[in-house]
Structure formats: C-alpha cells, structure tokens
C-alpha cells in the first residue's frame, strides 16, 4: 500500500464506533474474538467482520497463541495517521503563535495621536 492508501484505510477503519471500541479494548492488552465480542450486542461473525477491517488496515494483528488466536493492537498506522495531520497543524500553530505576538504588539502600541501626552 502507498502511504496515502494506508492513511485512507486507517481513517476508514476508525470511522466506526464498534471498531474504535475494539481498539480501546485492545489498547489494554490482547483479547480473543469471544472476549472482544462479549461487551457488544453482536454476533461473533459480526465482530469478526470488524476485526477483518482493522486487520487489513494494519491496526491489529494476531497474537502467538494458536488456540485462542488473540488479537493485539498495532500502533504504527495509528501514529502515522495522527502524525500526518499533527505536523501540518504544528506548521499553522507556529505561524499563529507569531501572529499572536504581532497582535499583542499592535494592541500594546499607543495610538499615534497628537493629542496623546508623552
């Protein structure tokens, strides 16, 4: 996948409340499909479908235990998705901090008026 396709897959996978809840659960540690399905009013196949989307986006992977086949979270794509916009945000933030400074200086400056006493 190209970086932009990977970002698309990440954002698409995150655009669903069930999948975000699954990720929140996996952030605490590995869990089997049955364990992941437990809090939801959803069949195991329905949960498996969500897991497949998360897996294809690279957001989760399968753990070592062949019996339980636990899922675990993969931080890479998520960090990439956050970093992508964050860098751009910081670019603007740096400019706007400079604008803050300028606006502060402009407002602190006494108006150029002949009536103004020194």
């Amino acid at each position, binding site marked *: 996948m190209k970086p932009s396709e990977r970002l698309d897959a990440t954002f698409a996978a995150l655009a669903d409340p069930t999948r975000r809840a699954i990720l929140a659960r996996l952030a605490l540690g590995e869990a089997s499909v049955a364990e992941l399905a437990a809090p939801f009013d959803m069949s195991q196949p329905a949960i498996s479908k969500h897991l497949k989307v998360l897996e294809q986006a690279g957001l989760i992977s399968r753990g070592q235990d062949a019996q339980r086949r636990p899922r675990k979270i993969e931080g890479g794509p998520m960090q990439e998705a956050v970093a*992508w916009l964050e860098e*751009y945000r910081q670019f603007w933030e740096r400019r706007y901090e400079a*604008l803050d400074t300028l606006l*502060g200086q402009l407002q602190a400056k006494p108006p150029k008026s002949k009536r103004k006493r020194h």
Partner: protein
Amino acid sequence: MTTMNTKAQVSLPSDSEVEVTRDFRAPRTLVWQAHTDPKLARRWLVGYPGWSMTVCEMDARPGGKYRWRWRSDEDGVEFGFLGEFKEVDKPALLSHYQYYDPGNFDSAMPLDNPCKIRNSFIETDGITTLTTRMDFGSKEARDAAVSTGMTDGMEVNYEGLDRIFAEQQGK
C-alpha cells in the same frame, strides 16, 4: 461560556479540503490587517525554519495579486507562493487563489490548479475566530500538500523555531 481555541485545530471537511481554525485575542479588524498589510503579514508568515522571507507583496483588492517568497539561509534556494485575491470583504471575508512557485516563476501567473483559500473572521467578545478553508482541487493534491507541501525539501528544526519565537517575544 465561551472557550478559546488557543491552539490551531485542523479538520478535513471533504476529500479535497483542509480547514484550520484558531482564536485570537484581538479585534477582527486587526487580524484582518495582519492578513492584508504586507508589512504586518511578513512578521508572522513564518514556519519555515532556516528560511527567510525575502518578498512579501500584497494588493488586497478583488483581482489584486500577491507574491510571497522565502530563501534558504543555507544555500540560497528560493520558493514561494503567488496568488490573486478574489473576495475582499473587510473585515469579514478574504478569499484568494494560490499557486505554488517552485522558485522559477518570476512574476508570471500560472493558470492551472490553484489552491482556493477562504479566510473568515468572526469576532465575539473581542476574540476573533479565524477559519481558513483550503480547497486543493483533488484529494491527491490535498494529501500531497498536507504531507510534504509545507515542508518539502526543508529541514524542520524545532529548536531553531523556538529561538525565533523567543527573539520575537524579546526574551
């Protein structure tokens, strides 16, 4: 209660757009002035560490042109943006078309694929909310601009920036 967005917020309103929003503790006439007076604009159009702004010309009238240019302190390489103002509704709305200048455009205005930028200035209780919506025309162009356009070929040096801000604030 009104809370201030003192940090820039970025969102993606559509596939081809980016929106940046930020609050400023100043009346909007002043924020407007900082966007349209070239002498003021060059004091905050920073964000490229190691690059100095060499040209900042702006004629903020409908159809008026602008030209911004930066030069690398290290090797003298230049790049910039050229643009044309579209809507100039002081002090509420400022829109312009922007073209990236890789350094060899001189003053000729390119005609293809501008980034359409729209700034709105809304003032509430002395706080100005500035919303900048940028339409890059396509998802590919937007993603490229967000990913690399702003820092393309430039070393991002945060320490250098901190120094610049400290100097500006007279610390």
